[in-house]
């Protein structure tokens, strides 16, 4: 009921290629969740399903209690999605784009102005916000896209690879922004390869490998599970070792046998 994102037994395959296999994952409100996994693990696919862009062949997804399906407008109104390839209209200025997004989400005009002003200052966008977005560097685009996602103060913020191409100062600002949202009771779901960021800010971490959730828990719980390893990097490399997963089919078993099962909401998923 009080879940921000509720994924139940979701399965998605493209032709014969299984991208997400029987995934069950619930994210409570007010959590910052980091979604990790090697290239091609199925992170982007999962995210697109949460946003209602792809439909799972089996299973259900709810966002803030709204079923994401054929008609997921209610759920979509609650979330904001930042794709891995940021989208902007070339021939709009950053500001025009932000205003358009504000209108799309029916944000009152005064509110739009306030939010744009605040984000411009924090993300240092003043120099370029009134230029056409086609002239932006990758990082500038990321900043505008991120701001667009924050325009309507979404209940759930879903970001695919937020930190790629951002300078260290901006990474810090973005981390702070995320933490502030969590304090306000909003939810952040991010997929990332930057383990350091995940380690530093995430409340919980999930590791996906070959479409299966192989690991889920807080940083402490993960450390407890994998007694020998101390850094997230070691845990990640260990759980996603290529030799442990021959082939990409659903038959691949991915969990190291000796990993202890934990109590509470930390567990290693078995298929």
């Amino acid at each position, binding site marked *: 009921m009080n879940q921000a994102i509720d994924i139940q037994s979701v399965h998605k395959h493209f032709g014969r290629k299984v991208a997400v296999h029987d995934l069950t994952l619930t994210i409570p409100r007010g959590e910052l969740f980091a979604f990790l996994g090697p290239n091609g693990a199925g992170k982007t696919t999962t995210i697109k399903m949460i946003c209602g*862009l792809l439909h799972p062949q089996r299973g259900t997804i709810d966002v803030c209690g709204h079923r994401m399906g*054929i*008609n997921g407008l209610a759920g*979509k109104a609650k979330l904001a999605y930042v794709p891995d*390839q940021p*989208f902007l209209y070339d021939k*709009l200025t950053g500001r*025009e784009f932000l205003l358009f997004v504000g209108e799309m989400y029916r944000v009152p005009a005064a509110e739009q102005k306030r939010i744009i002003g605040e984000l411009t200052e924090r993300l240092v966008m003043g120099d370029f916000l009134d230029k056409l977005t086609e002239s932006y560097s990758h990082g500038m685009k990321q900043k505008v896209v991120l701001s667009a996602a924050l325009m309507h*103060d979404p209940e759930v913020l879903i970001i695919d690879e937020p930190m790629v191409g951002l300078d260290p100062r901006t990474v810090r600002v973005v981390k702070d922004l995320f933490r502030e949202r969590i304090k306000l009771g909003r939810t952040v779901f991010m997929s990332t390869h930057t383990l350091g960021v995940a380690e530093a800010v995430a409340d919980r971490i999930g590791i996906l490998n070959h479409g299966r959730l192989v690991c889920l828990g807080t940083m402490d719980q993960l450390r407890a599970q994998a007694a020998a390893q101390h850094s997230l990097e070691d845990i990640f490399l260990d759980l996603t070792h290529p030799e442990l997963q021959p082939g990409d089919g659903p038959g691949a078993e991915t969990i190291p046998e000796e990993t202890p099962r934990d109590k509470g909401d930390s567990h290693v998923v078995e298929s």
Partner: protein
Amino acid sequence: MSSNPDATVAILHSPIGVYSLVRVKVVALRNRVSQAIADSPIKFLATTALLGVVWVGLYLLFVAVFAFLKQSRMEAAIAIPMVFSFFFVAMLVMLTVSNAIIAYTSLFAVEEAVYLLSTPVPPRAYVWLKYIETLIFSSWSLILLGLPLMFAMARANSDAAGYYYLFFISFFVCFVPIPGAAGLVLAWLIARFLDRNVRRRLIITAAVLLAGGLVWTIQTVTTEDAASDQWLTTFLLRINFVQSVMLPSSWVVNGVEAAIESQTTLALSYLAVTIANAMFLSVVAVRVVSWKFMSAFDRALSSRGGERSSAASPAVGLAGKVFFYLPMGQRLIAAKDLRTFVRDPVQWTQLVVLFGLMALYLVNVPKLSGAKPLEGWGMVIPFLNYGALSFILATFTSRFVFPLVSLEGQQRWLVGMLPLTPWQILISKFAFAMTVSTFVAFSTTVLAVIMLKMPFEWAVLQVVVTVATCFGLCGFAVGIGARLPMFEQRNAARIANGFGGTVNLVVSVMLVLTMLSGMGAVGYHNRTRGFDESLDLSTLMIVGVMIVVALSGGVAALIIGSRYLRRAEI
């Protein structure tokens, strides 16, 4: 704060409509134009002026053609309504197909779709937006081509009243959504119900059927009694279908004809029928497509780049062998371009459709060798064939060949690594373009000369001129593409529509017009002689000049392009 339930209710109650989406596009367009003016006003003016030149050139060409047709009164009576009907039927087919292609790519295959559909934009508003965009994209080139044709028609019928022009433009604008709606539904059906393998099989079946039908028609036509003077009747019967009352194109044809004859009420009622149908069909099409749109979107997204690589397909395998005459490095580049071309249906479907229409028209043209009911007519048909063919080729080279060099700029590091000079790179692009365009142009021309039962000498002349035109057009597209490149742009359509693309289009059209005047001169010179007599010296000289113009133009463009690239140090 908008996270409260009220905001969500507001979004769901009055979700963003298509107006807001269109408004964003209008703002973007305005920015684009003011940027173009601010960046380089001269370039902007030049582009506009060049487009004007194309437009006026086409208009003058059509006027000349109609005047030529009118020289013999009977031809005018037959040919003008025929050109008219054929033009609109061709438009109906072409617009349906090009709308389907553009709608498919813009509905399902762009980052914009992924973004907008993750927001609470109702699918129906999104579909409306894409429908409107598709209509504009697919019809603007036809506006460029169609308006001069129709205005020339009006001039040919000197009794047409002044308001004819108004009527014609209204007919044109109201007609476009009809094939547009059909194309939209077609695109949706493909995404919704056909998976990759079925689609592939369907395309192959259609191609086989088309080829079979073509062969059959050629056989029946060529075995008919050559001496028969019934050809006119047969011909008119054959094209009768293009004037069927149920076809939207015939409403336009009848309406415009009524307008020419100053029958205002009749013209108005045809216009009303067209408008009513256009509106009704648009609403139905958008409703159908937005119904369960997200599940069609899911399919389209999921089936992209499926598991099976088409590396094994014979066409792709052949690509490596076609360019055996090039040295290794150049061969690789040319083969890569050909593979990309074969794998991208957006590129070849349009070419196939255009030439399919050409073929359809050709098999309907009677053989003329034995029958000489009308003096001069015999020269007109090959002239028109050549004209249509070279315009199609010019479309192909400026849309698909021109961007090739610019697109290579994305992989600058890759091409930079290959031990090739700019000249060698341009030659491999040129080889690719020549291969594709000569293949289609050659087969169409051969079909034409067979259908017309042209004597051997004339057939060779037609083929040689066509190949020379290919050479010139490909040289221009590659050479100008290198001289005026847009290396930052990834979108091929945008590259083609940019400044360099416009220059190339204009130069290509000018080449085509020059070649057409040459063909016209040949036709005029031989107007009393006909095909039975062999080529005389003046004919050969005119053709010689034409060939020299085309070849030297192409080579000059290639040289200019490669010089520029060498200096730019790609």
